[in-house]
């Protein structure tokens, strides 16, 4: 065969000459797999010219657990449980993606109560995920305090989840045929209390970070990504929307109860870090709006329409569904051969595609810009490696 297969060693030991007229030497630095701002075990091999980043070579796989292979060895319900471990900050949306493809393929029924609960908890989790991102973003830029503010407010949502779902991170809640448990009797009251609380905290977020001159200086014009390049590089979610493309599956292919609620899709203009920051801040406000519209209108009904132990058989064929998680489009491709376990299941994860943009965004910037850009993508490494 004529196709040449390369190695990492060959990739980074190529010719390197500095572009500066001064006689400087370029060098490689391993950022990660243990590094404070790679959010886990991401490894970036950087080719640096002094402080300037010339090339970013992401090296993946440090937390590759073979979720797709494991999926072939279990049934559909078991796979729901596995996807919690991908993007653990939007576990509910992951559950929903699998649930959606199975329900669509096996033609399972749901009712409005189930859809309302799913929509509600997913939006709450979007807020929660963005809060964590906001805190970590501050920390990556060198400000510690936002981290604690973000986590403090996130805790309230986690408590709401804990009451209803029993878990705070890996939910395993949205199941084919319904949701695992009915909402806790306090759910509506707690969510309303949280909304009141959180709306009073949003100005605090702005005062601490958004209006800070250093934040603005650090973010504006950094890590630019044009709309065409963003689409070509497969970016989705806030990264794509910050580049000015209003692509949001909640609007373009509404699922759940998104077609019945009124919300806006915030878009940026230049696609720099600031736009990504702003888009996420705005998304939190929009999610609050969605939750406000739904919280008083949860219809009555059952919350699980099939027997939990029932075997789910999916007709043979290729099935695909996607949802909008806090980070972008999560698609589940299911190839079935008619049995009760998937023949092949593949997850199109948002972080995998969004991280691919880092090479384009960070090249030419400083190390500090790289950290800001990486953080503005809001990566969750287990979601990349699966």
């Amino acid at each position, binding site marked *: 065969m004529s196709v040449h297969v390369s190695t990492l060693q060959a990739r980074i030991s190529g010719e390197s000459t500095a572009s500066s007229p001064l006689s400087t030497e370029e*060098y490689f*630095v391993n950022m990660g797999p243990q*590094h*404070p*701002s790679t959010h886990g075990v991401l490894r970036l091999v950087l080719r640096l010219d002094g*402080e300037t980043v010339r090339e970013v070579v992401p090296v993946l796989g440090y937390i590759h657990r073979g979720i797709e292979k494991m999926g072939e060895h279990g049934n559909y319900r078991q796979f729901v449980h596995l996807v919690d471990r991908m993007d653990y900050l939007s576990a509910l949306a992951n559950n929903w993606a699998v649930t959606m493809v199975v329900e669509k393929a096996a033609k399972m029924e749901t009712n409005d109560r189930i859809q309302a609960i799913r929509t509600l908890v997913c939006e709450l989790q979007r807020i929660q995920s963005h809060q964590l991102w906001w805190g970590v973003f*501050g*920390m*990556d*830029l*060198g*400000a*510690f*305090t936002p*981290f*604690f*503010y973000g986590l*403090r407010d996130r805790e309230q949502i986690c408590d709401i989840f804990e009451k209803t779902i029993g878990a705070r991170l890996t939910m395993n809640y949205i199941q084919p045929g319904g949701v695992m448990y009915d909402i806790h009797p306090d759910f509506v009251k707690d969510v309303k209390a949280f909304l009141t609380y959180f709306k009073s905290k949003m100005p605090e977020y702005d005062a*601490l*970070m958004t209006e*800070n001159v*250093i*934040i603005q*200086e*650090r973010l504006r014009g950094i890590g630019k990504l044009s709309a065409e390049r963003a689409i070509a590089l497969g970016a989705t979610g806030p990264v794509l929307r910050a580049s000015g493309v209003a692509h949001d599956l909640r609007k373009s292919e509404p699922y759940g109860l998104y077609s019945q609620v009124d919300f806006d899709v915030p878009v940026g203009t230049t696609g720099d870090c600031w736009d990504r920051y702003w888009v996420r801040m705005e998304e939190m406000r929009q999610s609050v709006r969605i939750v406000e519209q739904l919280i008083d209108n949860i219809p009555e009904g059952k919350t699980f329409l099939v027997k939990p132990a029932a075997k789910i058989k999916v007709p043979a064929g290729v099935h695909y569904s996607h949802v909008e998680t806090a980070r972008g489009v999560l698609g589940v491709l299911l190839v079935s051969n008619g049995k009760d376990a998937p023949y092949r299941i593949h997850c199109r994860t948002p972080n995998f595609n969004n991280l691919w943009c880092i090479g384009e965004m960070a090249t030419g910037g*400083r*190390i*500090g*810009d790289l*950290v800001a850009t990486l953080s503005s993508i809001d990566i969750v490494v287990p979601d990349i490696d699966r």
Partner: protein
Amino acid sequence: MSWPVKTIAERTGDLLPGSPWTASVYVLLTILAVTAFMTVTGLVLIYAERKIAAHFQCRLGPMRVGWHGVLQTIADALKLLLKEDIVPRDADALLHILAPVLSFAGMLLVMIALPMSPSLQVADMNIGVLYVTAVSGLGVLGILLGGWSSNNKWSLLGAMRAGAQIISYEVSATLALLVVVLFSGTLQLSGIVQSQEAGWWIWRAHGCGIVAFAIFLIAGTAEINRTPFDLAEGESELTAGFHTEYSGLRFSFFFLSEFLNMFVLAAMTSTLFLGGWMPLHIGHFAVFNGVMDIIPPGLWFTLKTTAMIFLIMWFRWTFPRLRVDQLMRLEWKILLPIGFVNLFVSAACVVTGCYFFAR
């Protein structure tokens, strides 16, 4: 009313003709006292920083060891002392060991010139300001050596950042300092304090003082590598910067000297701009001045320094970090021109005697 200044060095000199032995015991006790003072100050500052940070961040901070965690830093210091001291195999062992000592020594040497009260100052040089500027530059040597000798690219990057940053900001800090020297007409630190008897330089100098104060504070914060200028450590970028490869006792030297540098900066700021140990006086208002004199000078110094330390900590827990090129731009394109203009304006003020309570 003039304040009689008697330094420890002078007192030793008085003892010397009587018996050299008494004098040397006195010197020994002084060294012990200074060391103890520094250690205690360092521990208190670390505790204060943790508590203040915690309350900025809506949490409690250390609460378990002792009442409200007061013994936490002692426990941490013990832990650091007992930790394995690692010198990386490919590091330059001698320089790796020397670096934290140098960093600590630079800070220690500044300490002896600080006028804490009329009777509490180790040595009062007639070129005190010059001495402080020169000796505080030693600290950067420790950081540079530490980063270079670690043989780690992140450490080297941190050290290079620190080198560029500290040397640049020293220029602005010195320019701001010169303003006070111009107004007070002396380089002697106790003399500068005495010159503020009619009022602090921060408000007496028609705005020049405030500008110089701001520049000195910003440049000083940059010199001691604290947020928003903590690029040398920049833990989200360079893991831990120049002290990535340090552990145990040697790390604690860097750590302690960072905190004591903050004390030195706060003490220098209050000495130069806020009157040091001098009570708050307003010109010839005898009654007001009399009331202010009730508070002893040592307490005045402590209060002012504490306030400055709190301000610096407040910066740290509010601001994010600058980027390396923004840092350089801030110094060379903003602070330095303002500093120069301010210096010329102050010179004009001094020549024309156009400031409050001119002699």
